[in-house]
């Protein structure tokens, strides 16, 4: 069995940051493995650990050389090998429609021919939440989005989808399938020192769009990033200032006025 897991290195902005033109300068950004993908990696590695048959777990990412640090993290957690897709056309693309990103990943998936693809529900930076389902459609696989429980039973996946308002939907999907993984489905492990050392020796292939038989035109989109700004604060909160003793005293007044602590 082969499990493909899609991972993305995401940027997080610092508490204090600036915007220059249509981007946040590098000095204000920190990079990390996308939180949702961390749960997807864990789910994939657990499948490999829990099944008697041989299971190969392959990670795929679309990202620059810097993102290899993130991929190595997935390798350190038990992913067997990884594929990174990048070239000048991808580097130059300012905004890629999620269905186009899915097209690129689909080319890797077609070559790998996995039984199961696990993908985070969304990326913490651009939050499109669409790549996994678009990927399934490109591959003509079944799918399920926002999965917070997964059991493989023969050639079928029995999943729970987390709907709004504390309701879960129980659904079965035949394999091969793409599942988008919600946080909380498991408890992602930390990479062990031994895992980190082993990850250095694992295979990490770099491919260009050309290697995958894709024309750079697949990235030509109709979306243009036109503006970027900090949202205007809508706050009309009364902010208490001072030492913790002083602010706690102010909070006490508000709480007691609202009836807290009354006998």
């Amino acid at each position, binding site marked *: 069995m082969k499990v493909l897991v899609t991972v993305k290195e995401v*940027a*997080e*902005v610092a*508490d204090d*940051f600036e915007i220059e033109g249509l981007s946040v300068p590098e000095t204000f950004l920190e990079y990390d493995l996308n939180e949702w993908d961390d749960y997807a990696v864990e789910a994939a590695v657990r499948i490999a650990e829990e099944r008697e048959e041989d299971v190969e777990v392959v990670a795929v990412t679309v990202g620059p050389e810097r993102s290899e640090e993130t991929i190595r993290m997935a390798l350190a957690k038990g992913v067997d090998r990884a594929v990174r897709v990048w070239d000048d056309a991808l580097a130059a693309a300012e*905004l890629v*429609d999620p*269905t186009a990103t899915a097209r690129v990943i689909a080319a890797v998936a077609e070559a790998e021919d996995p039984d199961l693809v696990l993908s985070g529900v969304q990326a913490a930076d*651009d*939050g*499109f*939440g*669409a790549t*996994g*389902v*678009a990927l399934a*459609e490109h591959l003509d696989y079944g*799918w399920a*989005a*926002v999965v917070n429980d997964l059991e493989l039973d023969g050639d079928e996946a029995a999943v*729970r989808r*987390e*709907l*709004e*308002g*504390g*309701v*879960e*939907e*129980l*659904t*079965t999907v*035949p394999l091969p399938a793409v599942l988008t993984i919600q*946080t*909380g489905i498991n*408890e992602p492990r930390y990479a062990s020192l031994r895992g980190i050392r082993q990850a250095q020796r694992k295979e990490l292939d770099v491919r260009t769009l050309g290697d995958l038989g894709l024309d750079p035109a697949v990235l030509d*989109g*109709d*979306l*243009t*990033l*036109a503006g*970027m700004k*900090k*949202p205007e*604060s809508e*706050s009309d*909160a009364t*902010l208490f200032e001072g030492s*913790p003793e002083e*602010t*706690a005293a*102010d*909070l*006490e007044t*508000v*709480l007691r006025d*609202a009836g*807290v*602590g009354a006998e």
Partner: protein
Amino acid sequence: MSDGDVLAVAEHRRGDLRPVSFELIAAGRDLAEDLGGDLHVAVIGGDVDGLAERLNRAGVEAIHTVPEGEEFNHDVYAAATTALFESLEPSVLLLPNSVNGLDYAPAVATRLSTPLVSDAVGLTVEDDLVVTREMYGSKVETTVEVAADPVALTIRGGEWPAAEEPGDAEITPFEVDVGDLRSTVRGFEEVGAGDVDISEAEFIVSVGRGIEEEENLELVEELADALDATLAASRPIVDNGWLPKNRQVGQSGKVVTPKVYLALGISGAVQHVAGMKGADTIIAVNTDPDAPIFDIADYGVVDDLFEVVPELIERFE
């Protein structure tokens, strides 16, 4: 050819239309007007005739009913939406950015080879359609110009006022062959039942990522005891297994409406706010002055919760 028409697909679950359906009508009506077209609404599955009656709001030109299945199944929704789209040829396909919307919108956009812009919080029409979105956990707002026609959009719930005035749309059945279904919905389950029902609580002390370590929860439990309040949490705390699911406030957890909601170390992600914005008084303690929680708070302290909470416990003990 596309002529500025908008097709919005309603969402319902277990017999009830979800509020986002009426928000889609409001957003779609404005958009159709700006584009010089009409708003079409589709309702798929369940009691489509009854649901269509309820969706008949001012500004809706036509409602298309597809009586396939009882509950949401993405194979049915994707097939029906694609067929309707091909038949109506609208300029914009408008879907909810809900769990179910995200379970079929990307498939439909891929099938139709249209670009997809998800999680829109604002829509304007200039020379092109301009979509407002958020990035980096709501810390940055972006605008995206869409040069394509047609385009698929999903809109965030709670950003548009629900359409309320009754309308006189024509309601017509739409026949579609949905083909073989791959996924099978086996049922639903309520989760998060337990010893405490936070939706009934009068005073809530709620804790988020800012608590950092599981051991630190003790401090917040102590405060909840001192205030005689109920302990709740944002998603990361429940994901970590530090508190059970029945304590989770938010879109996928419980909606709470206490007299006082004291948010400790909670940044205020949109999914969390959806579950607690109805509180009478919202108080936030957070180290980040730009945290979105302060946008909806009535009172706030920009400080470390580990400094403020012990002082507060002392005052109430």
